[in-house]
């Protein structure tokens, strides 16, 4: 529903990329929530990990990693994901 608000907010604006597949995103899978397991594959193992003044990024959490892996075995790439420089 937030996405719809966002679209309203953008009306009248030259929306960037409106013609690209990314712009059509919301029409491709209408009303379908992505599977949590697919999301966690990407959010826990993908995404940029930045070195620096990070309080915590998930790759740093050894303890949590163990229980997370029990929860989501597919996140095994965390094993070799220690590239964040901490």
């Amino acid at each position: 529903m937030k996405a719809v608000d966002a679209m309203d907010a953008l009306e009248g604006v030259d929306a960037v990329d409106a013609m690209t597949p990314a712009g059509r995103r919301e029409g491709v899978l209408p009303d379908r929530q992505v599977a949590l397991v697919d999301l966690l594959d990407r959010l826990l193992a993908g995404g940029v990990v930045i070195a620096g003044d990070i309080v915590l990024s998930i790759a740093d959490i050894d303890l949590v990693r163990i229980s997370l892996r029990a929860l989501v075995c597919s996140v095994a790439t965390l094993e070799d994901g220690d590239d964040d420089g901490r």
Partner: protein
Amino acid sequence: MSAPPAAPLTYVYAVTPPAPAVRLLLPSLTGVGGRPVTLLHAPGDDPGPVAFVISDVPRPDWDEDALKARFEDLRWLEDAARSHHRVVEALAAHTTVLPLRLATLYQDHAAALGVLRTQGQAFATRLARLSGHTEYGVKVYVRPAPPAEAEPPVAGASPGRAYLQARRAQRSAHEDHYRQAGLATERVAAVARRFTADRVGHPAQSGPLTSASPEENVLNDAYLVPDEHAEAFLEALAGAARGLAGVRVEVTGPWAPYSFAAPPPPPEEP
């Protein structure tokens, strides 16, 4: 200059160009923990090539101790993951976006700005590489072999022998499904060679979150697809399981390029 204990932490969702469309979009978004979503970039006339999309989040909810406890809680984790994803998706619908890993937090805006200053150019290079591309997931599943369908028992066969026959039949059906999965995987690879720019293999999915399904996941790939090839890619994939009753091919996405946000690791050996 240390922040007072109660000062909020800076939660970063993604890197984007500081485009007008992004600025207009953000006020309508809700971030993690129901927090407002804002843009953070270098002050002054020149915002630089890239900006962080952030929320200020309450320190007691997001500091290290809190997170250690909360990442054990699947409901909290799901809520945080979906909130993070909602922001990234909304951005991706309007511009190129570089998603950050879940729960990337800085002590304050100054610390986050420092990273933008030192790594902004690297982010901009990566964003340019991802521009005009979209991520799709492709998964191959092996369907369970049907319960041994008794072939007509050989006349006079003993019950024990009939049982063994049935078991053998099921095992061979099972093996056949895996053979079919291998074929489907080859077809996916052939389609990918034609239409995709990059590939990341995620580990096959298993465990509690998938245990409701009797199917076994044997391929869990992410592909980076140039937008002009997306339609042909999806059409070609639709045929990947044709004639293979023992497997299912599932396509997910379009996704923001989560799996391709980090540059590939430098080559270590030839």
